[in-house]
């Protein structure tokens, strides 16, 4: 590991004062019988961020989310919400959209929303006012007296989203929020999530859709087999996983000579990217060398049409980490 990476690693894990974090999970262990669902997991979720909680199925994400929601208790470890140890009153500060979600089928939309809002500690009057606001915003006022069973799945999901954000929680937890939405509604919900972030809410976002992680998340954490493997700012994590590999395109008369020169110094692989030229397309890992040296070598041998650092995608990091461990 290069010194910069080591230093980066240290800064990532340096203790930061709690007031900057809405949620701090420290050393949480959760066991179900002989099975360990969470093995000494610690996380820090900065205020006002969108925090991607990633991991394969069965990694322990849902167990962690259920602990944060006080549905279950950790066997050991602490959870701090906004500077205070987690306690029943915090239920009102959290909005939770579970992956397995549904509504009472035979209950009317309006009544049901009022009920669920009141369960979150809102007064009936407040709940009604907030519901009117959201129903108008999402243009669903005509659904008020319909039963859930008369609505489509996507429509019901919208209602669940509204119920989840209605009480203006400080911390929102979305578990696969986009599943079941068509692209138009998924976009609508995405915009609402960004809007909530602008208004100061913190969002924990658990998903398998890596493109939405790339798009939305400021921070990510990866949980695999009950352990946290990665945590940090998305860019920092990517930096940590950079491989000093460059994707290049060169138009050259003498391909063999260029390849010979490159393979002398670097590790070279074939690659393919979209281009209008018929150039030589390569992936070059430069190790400890500088990009400038690579670039001048290329310039001496032809016309450079493409030169970019290969940045690991969240998807790459995910797959790499999960398959390695």
């Amino acid at each position, binding site marked *: 590991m290069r010194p910069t990476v080591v230093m980066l690693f240290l800064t990532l894990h340096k203790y930061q004062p709690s007031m900057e974090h809405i949620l701090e999970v420290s050393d949480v262990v959760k066991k*179900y*019988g002989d099975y360990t669902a969470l093995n000494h997991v610690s996380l820090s979720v900065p205020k006002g961020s969108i925090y991607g909680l990633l991991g394969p199925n069965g990694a322990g994400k849902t167990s962690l989310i*259920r602990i944060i*929601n*006080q*549905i*279950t*208790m950790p*066997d050991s470890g602490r959870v701090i919400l906004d500077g205070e140890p987690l306690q029943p009153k915090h*239920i009102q500060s*959290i909005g*939770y959209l*579970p992956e*397995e*979600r*549904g*509504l*009472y*089928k*035979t*209950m009317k939309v309006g009544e049901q929303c009022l*009920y*669920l809002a*009141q*369960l*979150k500690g809102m007064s009936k009057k407040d709940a009604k006012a907030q519901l009117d606001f959201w129903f108008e915003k999402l243009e669903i006022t005509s659904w008020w007296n319909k039963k859930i069973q008369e609505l489509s799945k996507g429509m019901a999901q919208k209602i*669940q989203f509204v*119920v*989840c954000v209605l009480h203006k929680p400080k911390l929102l937890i979305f578990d696969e929020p986009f599943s079941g939405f068509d692209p138009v509604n998924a976009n609508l919900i995405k915009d609402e999530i960004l809007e909530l972030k602008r208004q100061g809410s913190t969002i924990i976002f658990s998903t398998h859709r890596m493109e939405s992680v790339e798009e939305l998340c400021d921070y990510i954490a990866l949980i695999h087999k009950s352990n946290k493997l990665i945590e940090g700012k998305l860019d920092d994590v990517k930096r940590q996983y950079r491989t000093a590999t460059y994707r290049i395109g060169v138009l050259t008369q003498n391909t063999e000579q260029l390849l010979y020169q490159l393979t002398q110094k670097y590790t070279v692989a074939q690659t393919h990217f979209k281009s209008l030229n018929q150039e030589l397309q390569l992936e070059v890992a430069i190790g400890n060398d500088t990009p400038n040296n690579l670039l001048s070598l290329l310039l001496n041998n032809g016309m450079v049409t493409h030169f970019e650092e290969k940045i690991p995608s969240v998807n790459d990091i995910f797959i790499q980490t999960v398959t390695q461990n």
Partner: protein
Amino acid sequence: MSLLKLIIKREFIAKVRNKSFIVMTFLSPLIFVVIAAVVGYLASMKADLRRIAVHDPANVIFNTLKNTEEYRYVNTSGLSVGVLRDSVKTEKFDGLLVVPATTKTNEIAQKTQYYSNESAPLELILDLEDQLSEKLTAQNYQAAGIDTLAINKAQADVSIQLKKSSGEDTIKGASLIRIVIGGGFGYLIMMFIIIYGNLVMRSVIEEKTNRIIEIIISSVKPFQLMLGKIIGTSLAGLLQFGIWIVLGITLLTVASAVFGIETGGTAGIAANAAAEQVDPSRIQQLLAAVWDLPIATILISFVLYFIGGYFLYSSFYAAIGAAVDNETDSQQFLLPIIMPLVLGVYIGFFTVINDPHGTVATVFSIVPLTSPIVMLMRIPFGVPIWQVILSIVLLFATFVLVVWFAAKIYRVGILMYGKKPTWKEIIKWTKYD
């Protein structure tokens, strides 16, 4: 507390608005009244008159046979048995009694025959046997030179007078009243538990299949949700019972007005019959016996056993609902719950009636799972207060234990999807924190 109230309110409204609840509430009393009317009508119908041919050439019995509303005896001693049997086959007669033409009582006793196409009514045969044996016994006495009059005089007619140790008079009919009142209350509790326990279970399963459960328990404790469900459902149940009672009484009144002539007629006959057999002082005694029952104890303990028993069992139902994904899977787990209930009713109706203070009745009236039914059946017979208190304390202690236990299963179960758990797994759930 206010969250619990919200849950109770929602559960209550959801139950009451349910179509099947409304239909059941208003249809059941109607069905009940219709059945009662049909039974009443059938009971008041006169049975068909049956003609019995009697072939009794020696006139052993014919003269003593009395025609009744149901049976008319025709002397056919002049015809041969063969002809008579044919006439039974062709249904000219409903039956044929053939008494051997002899004076030997032994032969008569053993060779008397009865022919019929269908199997003979047991009641008739017993009656005929009684009459014959009485007649033959009298003949035997005479033949042996025994003075039948003296025997009749010597016969002692015993009727033991029942008195309580405190010295008051009591009567035999009072036992019946106690059985009816105790049994009625016990049976009511069992019905309520089975009907509304099932409703609780169904509503838990519904939340699981709707997938709303996780949204709800991110706001409230599973224990609150479970308790709210049980209370809300029981309130809906009490409302339904209340409506049934009011509707039942109204409908019965209307029905008796409509069928006034017939029911009035039978009632009149019954009243006449009663007046013939029972003197007014006996009726007064019966009424006094009702008032003599520990009414306050019965009512207070009914309420206590009702609450304790219902909550105990519906916690079981809630836990089962949480453990399974659909109702079909619940059967295997329901059996051990329904068994003690049925056992309670059986013990109540067989053992308590014979021996209200015997070991079996006493033990099962203290064991918590059967006590709500068995003790309620025993109380009208007078139970030492320490037994009642012990049984209620045990019931509520068990209730607290079971609710705690059920809440643990409930908490884990509601978040488990997909597979039917085994008993072993369910026990394991209770060990999770």
